[in-house]
């Protein structure tokens, strides 16, 4: 691996100030470190934000669950409060990677990285999340721009993610047999003000499937999805799943999620 300078930032301000075009923030490092090892990414400066206390922790109020950016997947998975408020969110965290990833990986890191097959982005979309950064609040729908791309600017740091507590919700995924990332993951959430069907893994970026959401709005049942045609256009195709197969899986896993709601 190419060498770099490691900084442990004491607060968000310092971390932000250290950022440049050749730096990366380090939280869990579950994507950053492997890509550096493989030479896919090189940085002059690594800014560790794990030491910033304010960025970690879970807060649950009646309407919202707010999770600090450096909160680990295992903490979300094991949080009694989250299990009570949004059980599907705790279950999603329980299903990310393997136990060692969950002991180290963070929600902020996952969202900032926006891997097209990651789980958390679908939770953000489905649960009408608001992403709090050190400079603004961003609606999840506007946050995810494309493959590995978000609206975050240089030096901007996610501080917390605020999820809206739904009436009911569920996340179901079909993992890639090799990497165990989602080939397709579908997060269905029924809110007072509408339904979201967030899909990850299927396209280059997480998205809200409006057709499925509309159908479920008029009839919230797995059977109603049977009549929806999910187009394979724009869907990913690789050695593990063709676009056509992914389109089918979106439908099947939407049904499974609705059934489990």
């Amino acid at each position, binding site marked *: *691996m*190419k*060498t*770099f*300078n*490691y900084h*442990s930032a004491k607060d968000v301000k310092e971390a932000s100030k250290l950022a440049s075009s050749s730096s990366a923030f*380090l939280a869990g*490092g*579950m994507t950053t*470190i*492997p890509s*550096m*090892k*493989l030479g896919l990414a090189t940085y002059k400066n*690594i800014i*560790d934000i*794990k030491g910033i206390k304010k960025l970690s922790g879970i807060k649950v109020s009646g309407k919202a669950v707010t999770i600090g950016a450096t909160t680990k997947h*295992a903490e979300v998975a094991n949080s009694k409060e989250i299990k009570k408020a949004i059980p599907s969110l705790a279950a999603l965290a329980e299903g990310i*990677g*393997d*136990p*060692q*990833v969950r*002991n*180290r990986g963070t929600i902020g890191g996952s969202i900032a990285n926006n891997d097209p097959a990651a789980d958390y982005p679908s939770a953000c979309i489905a649960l009408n999340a608001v992403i709090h950064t050190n400079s603004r609040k961003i609606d999840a729908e506007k946050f995810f721009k494309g493959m590995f791309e978000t609206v975050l600017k240089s030096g901007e740091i996610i501080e917390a993610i605020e999820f809206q507590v739904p009436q009911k919700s569920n996340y179901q995924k079909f993992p890639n047999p090799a*990497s*165990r990332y989602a080939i397709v993951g579908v997060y269905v959430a029924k809110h007072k003000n509408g339904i979201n069907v967030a899909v990850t893994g299927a396209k280059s970026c997480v998205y809200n499937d409006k057709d499925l959401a509309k159908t479920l709005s008029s009839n919230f049942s797995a059977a109603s999805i049977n009549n929806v045609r999910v187009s394979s256009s724009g869907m990913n195709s690789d050695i593990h799943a063709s676009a056509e197969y992914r389109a089918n899986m979106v439908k099947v896993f939407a049904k499974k999620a609705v059934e489990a709601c």
Partner: protein
Amino acid sequence: MKKIDVEINGKRISKEIPDHTLLSDFLRNILNLTGTHIGCDTSQCGACVVHVNGRSIKSCTAFATDLNGSKITTIEGLAKNGKMHPMQEAFKKMHGLQCGFCTPGMVMSAIDLLKNKKNPSDKEIRDWLEGNICRCTGYQNIVAAVKEAASKM
């Protein structure tokens, strides 16, 4: 270069190391604790699993600099006064290892499982071991070993 102070297997270690040193390289190349193994470069095989502050992590996917002040346990630190840990004993009793290469990571991961769940079911054990690949055993005797250890711990 950064100076780090850590406790490894109960011993305080203070070293000056390059910033980009992975924990696995720190253990293997600097401290000569070669029980922690490297089986892949994509953080998937789990041969390198160690405990940091009591939780299992993949040492190939953490910078040593980043763990300043931590308590680290490796496979070498499990046996006490020459007596193996119940998980190690169980792996031996149930023939949960063959070539031994994945074994250190497997044992460290399994111990973390029992910290989370005292009496895991077969399915819970198999699910937990998702991050540990073994090519020799077909996992059956590893599952048996974890259950055996659970009954003894």
